[in-house]
């Protein structure tokens, strides 16, 4: 390939770069800058040093929002990734499972807000499908105000999240399983290994690389959960489902506290970046073979 002349390459890259720089790079830098100020979004800027960061460290709601998101992430690793893995194992072990695969994947297609509104009706304490269903099967005693009770609200959000995304992880694992050479599986089968053994002893270890990516996706995506929480509880009851993103939006848009909100955003970004970095370090050490 001969080196290109002068400005042509830039003409090809520039349009994309301009849009990217104006809409993302510049705002990232500006957010970082704003995090050291006190600003209400329109008036004069006041430099405050690291005051916003020390305030965040003493902000009990903000600190607790990380605990909530941690619980949510742990729950979704089980309800999304692990469940997805099991489903993939189930549908790939037999023929004629297209119907199930299509069904489980449907929620991934729909806007999260739409699903959240739908589920807020399913969980509605007065006429919702769930409480009515419990009544119908004689389990009326299990009825709850699912989203208004701090003991169940976060769990309910996690379960809805699992309902949506288990199918997504199933699709990933299913594709992974399909790339395992068939003769390996067949010969194990001929040796009399059961499907569960094949799944646990062969398939799961062979898609380890995919599992690691899936967990990383689940963790970094989970920390940024917003749509579901915003619609279902908006952090309530009394901040018990507050997650970093809902608190951030309240701080910036309700309280007009742009400087402090920027600091909270920077902290969140750093947390996500650290997890990503740490995770890729660990992965490089433990796995050389990626399937």
């Amino acid at each position, binding site marked *: *390939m001969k080196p*290109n002349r002068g400005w*042509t*390459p830039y003409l*090809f890259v520039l349009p*994309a770069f301009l*849009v*990217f720089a104006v*809409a993302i790079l*510049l*705002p*990232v*830098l*500006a*957010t970082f800058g704003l995090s050291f100020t006190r600003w209400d*979004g329109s008036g004069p800027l006041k430099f405050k040093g690291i005051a916003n960061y020390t305030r965040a460290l003493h902000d009990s709601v903000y600190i607790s929002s990380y605990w909530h998101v941690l619980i949510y992430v742990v729950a979704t690793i089980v309800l999304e990734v692990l469940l997805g893995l099991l489903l993939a194992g*189930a549908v790939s072990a037999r*023929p004629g499972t297209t*119907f*199930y*695969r*299509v*069904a*489980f*994947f*449907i*929620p991934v*297609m*729909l*806007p*999260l*807000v*739409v699903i959240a*509104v*739908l589920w807020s*009706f399913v969980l509605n304490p007065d*006429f919702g499908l769930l409480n*009515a269903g419990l009544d119908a099967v004689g389990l009326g005693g299990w009825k709850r105000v699912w989203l208004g009770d701090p003991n169940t609200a976060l769990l309910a959000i996690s379960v809805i999240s699992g*309902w949506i995304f288990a199918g997504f992880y199933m*699709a*990933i694992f299913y*594709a992974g399983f*399909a*790339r395992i050479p*068939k003769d390996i599986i*067949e010969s194990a089968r001929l040796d009399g290994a059961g499907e569960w053994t094949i799944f646990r002893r062969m398939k799961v270890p062979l898609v380890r*690389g*995919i599992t690691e990516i899936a967990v990383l*996706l689940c963790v*970094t995506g989970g920390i*940024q959960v917003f*749509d579901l929480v915003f*619609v279902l509880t908006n952090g309530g009851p009394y901040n018990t489902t507050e997650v970093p993103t809902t608190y*951030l*939006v309240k701080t910036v848009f309700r309280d007009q506290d*742009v400087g402090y909100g920027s600091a909270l*955003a920077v902290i969140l*970004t750093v947390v*996500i970046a650290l997890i*990503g970095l740490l995770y890729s370090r660990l992965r490089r050490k433990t796995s050389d073979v990626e399937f």
Partner: protein
Amino acid sequence: MATFDAVSNSDAAQSFAGRKKGVRPSDVLFHVVMTIYAMLFFLPLLWMAMSSFKTNGQIFQSPFALPTSWDWSVFATAWADGGIGQYAVNSFIVTAVSMVAILGLGSMAAFAFSRMKFRGSGLLLTLFTLGLLLPIQSYFIAQNSLFEYLHLKDTRWALIIPYTAMGLPLAIWLLKAYLDSLPKELFEAARIDGAGDLRIYWSVVLPLVRSGMATVAIFSALAAWNEFLLALLYIQNDELKTIPVGLLAFSTKYITDYHLLFAALTIVTIPMIVIYVLFHRRIAQGLTEGSLK
């Protein structure tokens, strides 16, 4: 990077060809369990669609009963009077323009990064790659202020620009990988024939990366169609709202008119499900590939 081939069912079926025929109890159990699990997905959707035809009283009193009458006009009401139609048009415009912009700008840049040498290409590529990792929270606050300053809020550009910018890193990354895997002789032959860069881009690059473009298109279209946070913050004018925010506005406006609400939910979900069922293999592949980068 992990890319997966879509596996056709016949492939999967073949690997079971050697097994003996006949219905086994474990097969029956399997299908029973899976069907029950699949019901978890269809029941709420079915309940939603059915409730569109019921009165508030029926929704409260007999949630499982079939509707007693089938009044289809409720959908027309939700679509026209409730504004769902306008929201759908807005979503369509914003999604389509962002998607075309991502495909166009992304493939041009990917071509340059993959097949041209120029100063600063490493740095620029690194910046774009960084875009894959940056969460939306790292920029939306200042982006909001910037758009205010530029008077972009409450215009469609306030969504099209960020959606395009958010989709570009993935598009460039994926399409560059596709282009990198192509033999360089293809490009050299075109150049010897006297084709310029633009010509090569148009008649060599674009046709060859069609499959990659489809992945990018699916991924970015769904991302734009479903995006909520920015749409919530940047669009207050009801006539410009996209489906997610519009539906939320609809649901607070008609909070006690339950069958109308269910009708609106049905209108926005059923077409998506139909599209998905028609193209499920491509869509599932596009989404998983896009997420795994």
